[in-house]
């Protein structure tokens, strides 16, 4: 009955007062408490950095370094945020970054130049994502198990390719991207890539049917299925997306380190999950925030930087990270139950 689909008889021309784009005040009110508190934490960290090491921390080069370091894990986290929002998990991201980075830096690949390296990194990432997605969506495997298997095999393959050796990049145009000359208005190219991935990720999650389906699958997969959504295909796409992000991150890492190593991306899966969770993405699915994830990444990277500048060992860093994750989740519980 098409008359149901057609616009209603009356009241249609009235613009809904609550549905219209928010005014600035509305926007501020809607910028939820969580995002504001994450910004607060980041500001506090910058303050601490500025007080403890005023010269080193606020130095432009240091800030460029922090953002560059955040870029690699940041791109991975954007993909991870989609997967977690859909109620899944991708434990293989670090291993995929390692495999993509070594495959793209073999002597044979480097013969094809800049494009060959970039293409290989992306294709390896997407290929691993495809395997994950097929196993999970159509093979009925639990995401935890399927991506754990991918973690193990991708790392093994990366070791086999390199034989444990560091593969040096010899292509000048790639190495140049890491140099100061390539900075655009003081912003490193890696950071620009991170920003672009973030913006595209935000748009996909918040403004497209793909994002809406992701949230629906994560919120209630059975309801999504009965509403006519192809849940399996959506899951496949999500792991492909995560793999793609890993491929991009691998290329960024090649630029950053000038090499490919089978130990690359170690424990990225944990950092990416942690950043997404403290950012406010629900581990159980159904709610995801790219903004929160990026803030989470920046918070972790800033802490690492401040600790390094103050000559604190990585063991202390790890303890601090753990404490922050616990604190963030407890605070979120509190705010979630009060609303």
């Amino acid at each position: 009955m098409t008359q149901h689909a057609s616009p209603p008889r009356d009241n249609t021309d009235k613009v809904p007062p609550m549905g219209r784009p928010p005014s600035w005040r509305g926007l501020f009110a809607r910028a939820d408490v969580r995002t504001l508190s994450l910004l607060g934490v980041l500001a506090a960290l910058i303050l601490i950095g500025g007080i403890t090491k005023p010269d080193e921390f606020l130095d432009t080069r240091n800030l460029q370094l922090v953002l560059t370091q955040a870029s690699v894990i940041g791109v991975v986290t954007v993909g991870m945020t989609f997967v977690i929002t859909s109620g899944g998990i991708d434990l293989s991201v670090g291993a995929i970054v390692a495999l993509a980075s070594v495959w793209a830096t073999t002597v044979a690949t480097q013969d094809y130049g800049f494009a060959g390296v970039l293409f290989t990194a992306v294709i390896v990432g997407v290929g691993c994502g495809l395997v994950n997605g097929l196993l999970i969506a159509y093979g009925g495997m639990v995401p935890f198990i399927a991506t754990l298997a991918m973690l193990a095999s991708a790392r093994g393959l990366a070791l086999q390719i390199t034989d444990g050796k560091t593969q040096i990049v010899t292509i000048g145009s790639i190495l140049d991207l890491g140099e100061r000359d390539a900075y655009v208005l003081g912003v490193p190219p890696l950071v620009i890539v991170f920003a672009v991935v973030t913006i595209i990720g935000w748009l996909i999650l918040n403004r497209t049917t793909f994002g809406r389906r992701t949230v629906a699958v994560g919120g209630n997969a059975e309801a999504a299925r009965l509403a006519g959504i192809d849940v399996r295909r959506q899951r496949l796409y999500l792991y492909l997306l995560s793999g793609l992000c890993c491929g991009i991150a691998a290329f960024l890492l090649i630029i950053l380190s000038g090499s490919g190593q089978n130990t690359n991306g170690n424990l990225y899966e944990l950092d990416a999950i942690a950043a997404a969770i403290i950012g406010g993405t629900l581990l159980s699915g159904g709610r995801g925030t790219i903004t929160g994830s990026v803030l989470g990444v920046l918070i972790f990277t800033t802490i690492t930087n401040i600790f390094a500048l103050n000559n604190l060992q990585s063991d202390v860093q790890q303890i601090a990270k753990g404490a922050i994750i616990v604190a963030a989740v407890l605070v979120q519980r509190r705010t979630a139950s009060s609303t």
Partner: protein
Amino acid sequence: MAPEPPLLSMSGITKSFPGVRALDGVDLDVQAGEVHCLLGQNGAGKSTLIKVLAGAHQPDTGTISWRGEDVTLRSPIAAMRLGIATIYQELDLVEHLSVAENVHLGHEPTAAGFVVRGKTAKASTARLLKRLGHPEIDPGRLVGQLSAAQQQIVSMARALSHDVRLIVMDEPSAALDPDEVDNLFRIVGDLTAEGVAVVYISHRLEEIRRIGDRVTVLKDGRAVAGGLPAKSTPTREVVALMTGRNVEYVFPDRPVSAPDGTPVLEVRGLMRHGEFEPLDLDVHPGEIVGLAGLVGSGRSEILETIYGARKPGAGHVRVDGRALRPGSVRAAVRAGLGLAPEERKAQALLMLESVTRNVSVSSMSRFSRGGWLDRRSEAGAARAATRELSLRPDNPAVPVRTLSGGNQQKAVLARWLLRGCRVLLLDEPTRGVDVGARAELYAVIRRLADEGLAVLLVSSEVPEVLGLADRVLVLREGRVVHRAPARELDEHRVLDLVMEGSPAS
């Protein structure tokens, strides 16, 4: 000589949930050694009452006395300590543990306080199973490998592993074959002979006649009759008690002439093994067809199979003469089917999302170009669809979880309205909807039919099916036992059909 106080006496029990008064001053007393049957239609308050008795719900008001002393059942453990055990319809066993481990779960025989004595547990479990007439069940087997009937025996063994004085059984015969039912009754007889009281819940009148001593009838949260003699009260009287109602629902008028012409939905020979037998069914545009039946009669399974959410064993579904790909929800939705499932929260709604997004989820391609959502036209269309159904509050930006049950149901209907669906499958559309809001929902459903939708309605509330539907199919245990226009049936007759399979008078 003063009369012995009853084993259990509940009086004036009241329990409200948001929007529903589930129990409204219920009295129940149970004597040691009797089988006390609880009877009532779905939603009458039986489940709530036994959950209060099991300590799972706390009553708002009312007193419970146990062997003459007032008690408070603060938790299931408190009830268990007194000797009250409950066997729920949905068995609460751990599939991956063995029979013995399940039986002793929470009170394992231990050595030195923490080492589980597996052999002792197995031996005592074997004794219990023998007492229950099922010595063939191996205490070491995993519960997940047992049949439904055997699992029920395990559940009962668990109840008996405590020092139990009262056992509540919630529709224990629903999953059993006739000879297993005989064994169940033998067990009940043995228990009562030992002085244990049994509170027995069933829809089946003939069972209540066989083993019951007294009957309490619940209706709309009240006990309309307490302690009737189970064997001598006439069926007529029991059915009248169950159905005579204080709240008269207002049903919309039916169209004067029955719709004819070609059916939009045609079901031919559709069946699923163990769920329902081959079914033929037509629904015309503008027509509401009702399926009446009890829980377990295959109602929901039929709807979900038509919708493609379950794969049929045989048969097919046609919409406008075109066969749907079996077992594909997407094919069904594309062809114009829409389902409002029984478990709204678990199967239909995205509880974290706004009403708008819940309504638009099945029509997203209409508000997007190249995957890009036009959120303004989405919000406008969702608003229009929810307004057409008078959904309250009149603001689709609010989270769907803040809505009442009736308005959540309207959000699901709005989803299919927006999609432009042609056949609406409604599974218990008024479940969890409070009494006041039902009439409005009925009016909405009838209006949608009048506008040309074909509606297939499933309900365990007989008056709902009779009041709303044009034609009725009565189901019993997966089989259609009767078809008739709704105006040729009455509630007593349908209840007789669903409970006993044949007209009683």
